[in-house]
């Protein structure tokens, strides 16, 4: 929004500057266009196939992430979103490893398929080998008419952190009738959640990885606050979504700058 706005508080200083023959300035809204990270012009369809979820069992990271990304893509991208069953990728990897272990007795299986063992952040890396399986993804691509495939890992787990936190200590009114808000700094233990989505974009025509990105988001709450895990998950995903969407479509960052005369 183009605007000529000078804060009233600054008007006195501005008037002084103008009186002194100073150059004036204009605050203006700009929208910086950010090009998409990926060229998806050759795709008409996108398949969010599934994720390998790790960490807390409080949230089904695979199901929730698929549901959320599909709905975001439906409303905010040009691609047709394929509605398909969510692939249990973790079980597929476990099954493969079990087969491999049976063939080679020295190989370590990651666990039984369907077993609800929590996968740690480090263990997730062992599962990532599936993303490099070109033949597997090409086969899925053929099944769904060569879409852009979105997959990856999603680690979501509770965390605790200790540190100095600034808190408001209540309001008071001073002798001039002005409202004052006091702050105190206190050492606190806080709990929260960490979310580490690693998204992999695969070309369904060739089965090769086009692009992948990983971020870490954390949120902390007061110990006394009882925030449901699912609510924290959505709060954290909300921070990550602009970056995800920018992989497929251009985004605009709104801001203000000052034009000078």
């Amino acid at each position: 929004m183009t605007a000529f706005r000078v804060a009233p508080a600054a008007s006195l200083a501005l008037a002084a500057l103008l009186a002194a023959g100073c150059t004036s300035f204009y605050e203006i809204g700009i929208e910086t266009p950010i090009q998409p990270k990926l060229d998806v012009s050759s795709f008409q369809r996108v398949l969010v196939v599934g994720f390998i979820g790790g960490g807390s069992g409080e949230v089904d990271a695979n199901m929730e992430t698929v549901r959320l990304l599909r709905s975001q893509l439906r409303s905010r991208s040009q691609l047709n979103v394929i509605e398909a069953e969510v692939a249990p990728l973790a079980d597929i990897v476990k099954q493969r490893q079990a087969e491999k272990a049976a063939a080679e007795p020295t190989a370590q299986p990651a666990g039984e398929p369907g077993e609800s063992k929590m996968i740690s952040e480090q263990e997730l890396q062992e599962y990532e080998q599936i993303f490099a399986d070109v033949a597997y993804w090409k086969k899925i691509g053929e099944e769904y008419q060569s879409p852009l495939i979105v997959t990856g890992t999603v680690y979501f787990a509770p965390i605790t952190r200790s540190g100095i936190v600034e808190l408001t200590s209540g309001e008071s009114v001073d002798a001039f009738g002005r409202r004052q808000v006091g702050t105190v700094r206190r050492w606190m233990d806080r709990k929260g959640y960490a979310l580490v989505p690693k998204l992999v974009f695969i070309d369904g025509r060739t089965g090769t990885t086009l692009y992948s990105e990983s971020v870490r988001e954390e949120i902390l709450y007061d110990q006394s606050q009882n925030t449901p895990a699912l609510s924290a998950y959505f709060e954290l995903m909300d921070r990550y979504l602009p970056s995800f969407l920018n992989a497929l479509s251009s985004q605009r960052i709104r801001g203000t700058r000052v034009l000078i005369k």
Partner: protein
Amino acid sequence: MRKRVLSACLTAAIALGAPGAGTLTARAAGAGIGADQDARSVAKAQVEFGIEVARKKLWREAVYRFEKAAETDPTYAPAWNNLAIAYEQQGNFNDANKAYMKAVELEPNNMLIRQNYDLFKEIYDRLSRRTGR
């Protein structure tokens, strides 16, 4: 926002007293440098028009005007600052970076320019990391 504009205003006043700004003011005042004064006047007129069209979201025209101003008087920092903003709005990040750097070089103590550049740098650095530029 109000605080930012106030601080920018005050720092601009300080910047006027800075050596760079002083030099420009002295130059604009003439002291026998008629050609410089003319160039500055022409550049200022282009900048003023550029601002008008930028406020109407006519950014292409604004780019043209600010380019003209910077070309006419390459020592006029506002022209480079405004040109950088117009480039940024158009997604021309490399040119925006160069123009901001030129503006900062000409008026290193101008906090308005610094503030614009800092905000731009946040985006530019992130994009540079992504593309390995």
